[in-house]
């Protein structure tokens, strides 16, 4: 690939070698306090919020018949009678052991829940990013190369529409439309990609499309504005003056430089995907981690909630590190030292 100014793109020795490893290590070490902070916040919030897990455990009738002695004993069995620092240390030990503790209900291990439902949610997240790029980039480029044209105006209007529509609402519309127009309903239970790819795809595509279209609108707007900015640069004009075809000018010269902020936005949008998936999975009835989180919140299943929130925090942090690392690939001027 030829880059403007004749600089050869790709990994420099700093980008691929010990420099990157050092950078990665430093980011991960700096990330640890963030994760500790998240864990403390969610740990405290779950214990401060009103609500009693025993209601879900015993049902309304059973809960009302619990005498104080039974109640104290059960809370003690659940580890909720210990002082807060002790409870926190127990949780950290559970994380270190890899089990992440057990759900209050039925005693299921949180690690099993994550292993069973996590792959589906991860697929939905990755597919949504893919869809957002597949939709957002072409739309943004089209809009940028013909600014203020009819196509540009239509595209901008549509992107505003998708920015404004809540994902869960769009999800419900899609579910209803596919049901009443095509008598179609997605499968009811989790099927992993390696078990039955087609059924798995049917589960993931709905939520991924809704999340992807929402993000695609952001990507399109960001691509348009960045590309418009870059297209006015001297090196682009030089390329044009050298007789390079307009398509190549955009794709090979302008776009790579315009992508950097777009990638940054993608990383931030991953946070929206993680958050949005909670509501969108619920709307589609997809039994992923988002649905599990909603159920756990309603049931006050503290162990599940705090582990899933922390997991989302870890993922968000890692995505941001990956985004930072990708800068070096896209812009040779950036070295991670």
């Amino acid at each position, binding site marked *: 690939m030829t880059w403007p100014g004749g600089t050869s793109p790709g990994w420099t020795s700093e980008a691929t070698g010990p420099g990157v490893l050092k950078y990665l290590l430093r980011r991960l070490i700096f990330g640890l306090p963030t994760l500790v902070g998240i864990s403390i916040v969610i740990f405290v919030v779950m214990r401060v919020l009103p*609500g009693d897990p025993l*209601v879900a455990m015993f049902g*309304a009738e059973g809960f009302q018949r619990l005498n104080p002695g*039974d109640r104290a004993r059960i809370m003690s069995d659940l580890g909720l009678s210990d002082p807060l620092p002790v409870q926190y240390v127990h949780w950290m030990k559970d994380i270190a052991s890899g089990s992440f503790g057990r759900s209050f209900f*039925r*005693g299921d291990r949180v690690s099993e829940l994550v292993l069973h439902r996590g792959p589906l949610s991860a697929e939905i997240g990755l597919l949504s990013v893919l869809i957002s790029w597949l939709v957002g980039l072409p739309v943004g480029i089209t809009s940028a190369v013909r600014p203020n044209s009819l196509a540009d105006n239509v595209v901008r209007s549509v992107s505003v529409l998708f920015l404004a529509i809540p994902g869960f609402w769009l999800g419900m519309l899609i579910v209803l439309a596919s049901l*009443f127009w095509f008598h179609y*309903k997605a499968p*009811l239970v989790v099927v992993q990609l390696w078990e039955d790819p087609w059924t798995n795809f049917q589960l993931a595509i709905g939520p991924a499309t809704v999340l992807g279209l929402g993000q695609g609108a952001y990507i399109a707007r960001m691509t348009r504005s960045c590309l418009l900015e870059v297209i006015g640069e001297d090196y682009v004009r030089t390329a044009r003056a050298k007789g390079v075809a307009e398509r190549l000018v955009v794709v090979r010269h302008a776009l790579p430089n315009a992508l950097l902020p777009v990638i940054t936005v993608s990383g931030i949008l991953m946070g929206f995907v993680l958050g949005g998936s909670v509501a969108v999975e619920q709307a589609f009835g997809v039994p992923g981690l988002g649905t599990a989180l909603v159920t756990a919140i309603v049931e006050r299943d503290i162990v599940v909630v705090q582990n899933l929130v922390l997991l989302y925090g870890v993922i968000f942090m890692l995505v941001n590190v990956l985004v930072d690392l990708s800068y070096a690939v896209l812009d040779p001027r950036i070295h991670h030292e």
Partner: protein
Amino acid sequence: MAEPSASPSDSETVDRRAFLKRLAVAAGGVVIESLPGRSRPRAGAAEEAFRLRALEPDPKRGGTLRYGVASSPAHFDIHQSGTVANIGAQGPMYDNLIRRDPRDGQTIIPDLAHRWDIAPDGKGYTFHLRSGVKFHDGADFTAEDVKATFSRIIWPPTGIVIPRSPLFSAVSEIRALGPHKIEFRLKEPRPRGFMLSAFASGWNVIVRKKTLEENDYNLRQTPNYPGTGPFRHVSRKKDEVWLMERNPHYWNTPLPYLDRLAVYNFAPFSPELGAALLGGKLDYARIVDTATLRRAQEQPGMTGATYYQSVVDAVWVNTRHKPFGDPRVRRALHLALDRHALIDVVKEAAPYLLGGFVYPFSEWATPRNEMIQRLGYQLDPKPAVEEARRLMAAAGYAAGLRNVDFVVREGTSWKLWAVAIQAMLKEALDIETKLRTVQISAFFEETQGGNFDLSIGAIVSTLIDPSDYFNAWYGKDGPQNYSKWHDPAFQRLVAQIDRELDDRRRRALVRQGETILEQDPPFLPVAWEQLSDAWYTYVKGQQPRHIFGIYDVARWDVAWLDK
């Protein structure tokens, strides 16, 4: 035993008269089965004499029924549970001592006990058990299993909480009189219908003594303990689907007709449940929303039905907070509610019934035509509102009340009602309320802790018999008496109702109790629940029209697929 006839229309909704008629026939069946001194056939012949069959002629065998219902229980101990999430999924794997006939939902019929005797003094219930019945793990079923099961239900060990324990408060002793005979001794007699209904409650499934012993009498985290029921466990995907297969050694041959049962987990009234049914992913859906029911009834090849549920929706009034300890204030609030309008407000979400303090479709209730003449239940709310204003003035609150804390349980109907009630109280009595919506996990904490002035939600009973819910809902120490209401005269009356063996006199006592409750309301009844199921017409054998609640008829043994 009563033999119900097929319904003329699949979409028929049973009316109150039909329900009461069937209930009366059912009660007759109970009496005939249990008359002391009645000549009985030999045990072996008697065992053979009763075999449950499908309602329809020539039922087909085989197939998998895909059933959608809330089936993600917080634990696995049916006895300790009070939610459909347990009984909906686990019910098909267990049997009872006696049960409600799944074909009409009401008649009490033999189950693991093929017959029973009631001592002339009403203080002894002896059950004759079937021989040759095996648990799913191959163990023999004996009277010791029944004794262990009911001992735990009646006298739960420390840390075990069983909502049905109070139903058996009169039981003093359980004696196994042999491997297949068991006697329950009572301290004092109780109405026969009440006791048999308690034994027949769908919650009181029989489990193995060994299972209980091995699990320290707590089955909360024991997923697949063996039962004797028509289906046995195959696999369970947490929160998703529970698969069961036909029990080939089931004692009630040729039941069950289905080869497999797949129980999918869906929240009640959820659009996901309706979508899964209408999208052909389910054959039968329990507790669907009104829109799904309507669509199923309109769509060829599908149908649906609405039935009574054992739940009242109400507003509790904290009698420990001034001025709600004053019966005049509570009666005024009670009269200020336009119940016809409230039922109308939520009709698109769920079907509800008008009623007061007694199940409106039960034999103990004031008939509807009398009820709608009564203040607080009239179509025209004006006379009731005028009386309410007079009561508030007499209590010294003619200018109304301010900053009344109104806790609202999270849920469509309650949220809609709360807004409507807020407006009604403001309009009629100039009472200003502040709504505070809370999740279910916080709702019971708030209501039990007395952190409210008004609180809207719902409560459930096991039996339709007033002896059950008069104690639990209105009793001084009743677990669901959130208002902390206490009326000594009513308390004495309930004790009489519990012991009165004559049906006519008992009914009169219940009416007396109802009068007290109307004048000094422990809560403000809003409406009585009904639920709806929807299914494809090829699903046969399930008759949800005449049932009381969803907990007694959850076994699917007479269901079959006509395809």
